[in-house]
């Protein structure tokens, strides 16, 4: 069987911004892995391919081993197409069997299972055309599968997902180095320290309330406390961090200060003191010293998030921190309000007080005003430097993707710039 990871509609994708601006939904993380990796682990396909937004296809093709947006992958094998929003724990569709398409109440394709013979009859140049034909030759049924709706769903579910995946992976014990004196609280079976990981002295790993998984080549500096459930990705470094429960930190991150129930993608830095709670942080983000986000309102009411500068969504949760897009950087002392949307490729300077809750992508926030700053070319140059420091390259395909994102995010940014201009003129 060939698994094809597909994307939801543009409207549904927008509910995962700013993280989904630069990646498909199935690349979002929750627990120890991405949503796509969970589907692959469960369905065990012979091969995997994907269909993504056209503007990001060339960039993804550079980094993925699977084929991207290739119509040839829609023929020649038994197929199972799965929407990236589908929660793996509630997906009980047999990977192979009679052809059928499951759609949500609004017609969104959740999955499509086709035999090789059926798939070959649907030959088309695009995924949309393929599915249109498929709907005519195999039964279509309305299904009510559990799905991810917003980015904060992933944050709120992260601890539980770490616990589930830790158990499924079945590893425990110390294969790396645990220097003494250090302490493991709770059941040592709830701790896994992978080969090459180095845990310095004076570290507390508290697995009493959940497992702790420290992946290969993780380094944990003295005076760090790690509470489970927690996952730390390969090559990441914890620098005297108060790493509270429910964190999933991707590979090659630098994490200090206090972090609670947050997801951080790879290659992001929160090196210094400052609180990050119930946040979702993208890749290549740098949070300056003392950057702090609120994740709880003083009146304990439900947190709302302004998704595109004007669409306010009530999260239904009293604990939601910041959503921070890829390549965004904050200065020292930035204070982020509860449920802040911080766009991708933005540069945020402190004002001494909590910032506005919506900060558009590519914004240069200066003195509390959204400006054009030194422009996006300067941001790309900085991104290229940041990547080179970790041995990664900024490529033309990547820049082309960000140029598309710049256009996609223009409307709320332009409005914020105009608002900022008026405020500057009033000074």
């Amino acid at each position, binding site marked *: 069987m060939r698994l094809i990871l597909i994307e939801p509609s543009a409207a549904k994708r927008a509910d995962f911004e700013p993280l989904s601006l630069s990646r498909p939904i199935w690349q979002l993380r929750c627990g120890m892995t991405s949503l796509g990796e969970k589907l692959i682990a469960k369905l065990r396909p012979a091969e995997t391919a994907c269909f993504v937004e056209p503007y990001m296809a060339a960039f993804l093709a550079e980094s993925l081993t699977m084929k991207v947006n290739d119509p040839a992958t829609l023929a020649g094998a038994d197929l199972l197409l799965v929407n990236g929003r589908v929660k793996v724990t509630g997906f009980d569709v047999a990977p192979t069997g009679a052809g059928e398409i499951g759609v949500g109440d609004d017609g969104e394709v959740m999955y499509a299972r086709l035999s090789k013979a059926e798939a070959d009859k649907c030959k088309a140049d695009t995924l949309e055309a393929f599915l249109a034909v498929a709907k005519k030759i195999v039964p279509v049924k309305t299904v009510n599968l559990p799905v991810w709706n917003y980015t904060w769903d992933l944050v709120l579910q992260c601890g539980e997902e770490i616990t589930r995946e830790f158990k499924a992976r079945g590893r425990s014990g110390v294969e790396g180095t645990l220097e003494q004196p250090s302490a493991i609280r709770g059941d040592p079976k709830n701790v896994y320290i992978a080969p090459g990981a180095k845990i310095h002295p004076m570290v507390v790993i508290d697995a009493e309330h959940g497992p702790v998984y420290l992946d290969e080549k993780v380094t944990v500096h003295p005076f760090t406390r790690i509470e489970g459930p927690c996952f730390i990705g390969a090559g990441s470094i914890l620098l005297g961090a108060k790493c509270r429960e429910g964190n999933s930190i991707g590979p090659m991150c630098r994490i200090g200060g206090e972090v609670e129930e947050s997801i951080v993608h790879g290659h992001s830095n929160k090196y210094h003191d400052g609180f990050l709670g119930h946040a979702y942080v993208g890749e290549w983000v740098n949070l300056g010293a003392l950057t702090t986000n609120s994740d709880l309102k003083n009146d304990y009411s439900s947190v709302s998030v302004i998704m595109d500068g004007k669409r306010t969504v009530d999260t239904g949760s009293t604990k939601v921190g910041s959503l921070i897009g890829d390549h965004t950087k904050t200065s020292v002392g930035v204070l982020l309000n509860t449920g802040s949307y911080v766009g991708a490729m933005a540069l945020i300077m402190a004002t001494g007080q909590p910032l506005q809750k919506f900060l558009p992508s590519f914004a240069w926030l200066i003195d509390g005003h959204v*400006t054009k700053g030194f422009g996006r070319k300067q941001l790309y140059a900085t991104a290229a430097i940041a990547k080179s420091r970790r041995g990664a390259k900024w490529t033309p395909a990547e820049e082309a993707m960000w140029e598309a994102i710049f256009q996609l995010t223009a409307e709320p940014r332009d409005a914020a710039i105009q608002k900022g201009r008026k405020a500057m003129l009033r000074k």
Partner: protein
Amino acid sequence: MATVEERVKMVTARVLDLDPAGIKASDEFGADLGAESVQSIELVAMFEEEFGIEMDEDEALSVTSIGSAVEYITKVCKEQGAAI
């Protein structure tokens, strides 16, 4: 109507909190007028507002003095049909 140079000096004085009478065409924004990088961003924004134009960020930030700002803004105003 004020000249482009007078308007550039007026905006510069407002953003950098200076006396416009003390600003010369040869003054460098950084070395002579004390503009920091953050204020350069604000200067570009306020020049755009003052003249009703849109400046290319790279070009605008390569302008380092009052005199060169006058030249550059005059050129952009002509290109974009803004009245000066």
